[in-house]
């Protein structure tokens, strides 16, 4: 308990200190990492915990980004309200998609979710009047009342606490009966059903959670990047997100943060290798799968089993 309080105090201290110590661009990167980590956290839940491979995550990110931007643009619903609403809608879509596709597993599930991503991207391109089509659309500013947060230094105070709260809640859920049920399903669906767990429903719920987190992260990313281009929400991005989860650690919320941080910071470190960035990530993925299949998160000392 005291350890936990100390950790929280340090976290709050760092949070308040960062805007004074870091440049605006670094805060921007911090926000990018935070928003991306929420998206990857969705994959930790559905793929890492429930064991269901998903290539639909960039479609849910698109749902969150586009619908919150469209709600702000056409209906004048501010982003702070539109983002959670979009995330809830995405959760229902995820649940329905789960009910429809989760009867199949493995390769077939990967293909079905891949198809979903392709379909959503096509809709984004062809629904010109709503989404701006292939040219994309600008994202309205993140407004709270009359105050518009336009700089990363301002968005930081919204994005980082929101993400931290989401992480605490998801980590708590994973250390509750719900987390145990997902772990049970991953390991033996037959045995899970034999103790009365509704396997299909649980998997669909995990899918809904991943959709919620994907859309939430997408909604938070939108005001940061300030422009939406359908090319950002394709199959390549879905695979990249999965790669982040694998490199960071599929079984741990911490892994989502580590994986996202690497994918966002590495391009800066390797500025002179821009052309070979794809190759670097591919190699990173291979090395991580071979050397540390449980991801970077498994490097830390296990801080006492869940209790």
């Amino acid at each position, binding site marked *: 308990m005291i350890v936990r309080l100390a950790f929280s105090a340090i976290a709050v201290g760092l949070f308040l200190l960062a805007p004074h110590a870091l440049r605006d661009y670094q805060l921007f990167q911090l926000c990018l990492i935070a928003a991306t980590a929420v998206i990857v956290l969705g994959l930790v839940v559905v793929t890492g915990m429930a064991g269901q491979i998903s290539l639909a995550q960039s479609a849910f990110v698109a749902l969150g980004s586009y619908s919150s931007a469209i709600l702000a643009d056409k209906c004048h619903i501010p982003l702070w309200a539109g983002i959670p609403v979009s995330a809830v809608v995405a959760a229902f879509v995820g649940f329905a998609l789960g009910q429809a596709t989760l009867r199949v597993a493995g390769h077939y599930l990967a293909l079905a979710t891949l198809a979903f991503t392709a379909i959503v991207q096509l809709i984004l391109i062809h629904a010109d009047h709503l989404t701006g089509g292939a040219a994309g659309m600008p994202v309205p500013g993140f407004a709270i009342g009359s105050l518009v947060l336009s700089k990363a230094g301002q968005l930081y105070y919204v994005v980082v606490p929101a993400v931290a709260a989401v992480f605490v809640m998801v980590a708590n859920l994973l250390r*509750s*009966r*719900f987390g*145990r049920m997902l*772990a049970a399903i991953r*390991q*033996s669906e037959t045995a899970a*059903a034999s*103790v009365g767990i509704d396997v299909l429903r649980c998997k669909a719920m995990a899918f809904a959670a991943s959709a919620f987190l994907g859309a939430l992260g997408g909604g938070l990313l939108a005001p940061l990047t300030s422009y939406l281009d359908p090319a950002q929400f394709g199959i390549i991005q879905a695979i990249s997100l999965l790669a982040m989860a694998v490199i960071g650690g599929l079984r741990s919320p911490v892994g989502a943060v580590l994986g996202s941080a690497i994918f966002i910071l590495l391009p800066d470190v390797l500025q002179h290798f821009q052309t070979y960035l794809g190759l670097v990530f591919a190699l990173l993925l291979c090395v991580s799968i071979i050397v540390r299949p449980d991801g970077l998160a498994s490097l830390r000392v296990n801080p006492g089993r869940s209790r």
Partner: protein
Amino acid sequence: MSPPVLTIDDVSVRFGGILALNSVSITVGAGAIHAIIGPNGAGKSTLINTITGIYAPSSGRIEFLGRRIDGRPAQEIARRGIGRTFQNTELFGELTAIENVMVGLSRHINYGITEGALHFGRFARSEMRARNDAMAYLAFVELADEAQSIAANLPFGKQRRLELARALATQPRLLLLDEPAAGLRPAEIAGLNEILLGLRTQQKLTIVVIDHVMALVMAISDRISVLDFGNKIAEGTPDEVRASPEVVKAYFGEGRAYAGGV
């Protein structure tokens, strides 16, 4: 006589051209230990998998506590009060022993998703009670010392007992055990006998045991049904079954020497 707990009525199961069960009828009385025995390939596991909803019968009906369960999904049948173990053990291998049992308790833990996300409200007390209950089940099968062991790392005999604890944690009215003695040493089988007799007399649990290990079945069963090639060929008390010529034939083949031990 009290109404039966489980009624299997004229059940056939067909896989393509193979008739795995042929018009089998078995009635299991309340509070009984009922054994279903037969040589390999007799249809014993098919029967247990049909009762628990992994397969649906091609014809016939199965009633549990007066309600039809044939063709219902496995989790629904489990929720109505049928617990089971598996022939080759189906544990949640990466979880600890106590977590395995706590998964079995899942339906009896009553906090909701918000309480789980915020770890408040009923969460702490509920988890604490689940942990204590799980420990009690582990102690019952004499695995209290292994509570924090990863299930996959336990020796086979302990895995079997852990599976039993997990099934008991669902608080079933009927317990189905699929070859619980397979792979156990004689001393372990004696221990299992004690546990099963205790469950019947102290907790009034109805138990169906599928097995071909006679030492277990003959010692504890109230009734025995014998399957061979998907047909029920005999039924009765252990003594009646032991004396039945059909059973001797099915087990030892015609003309083979009576090997004793049955």
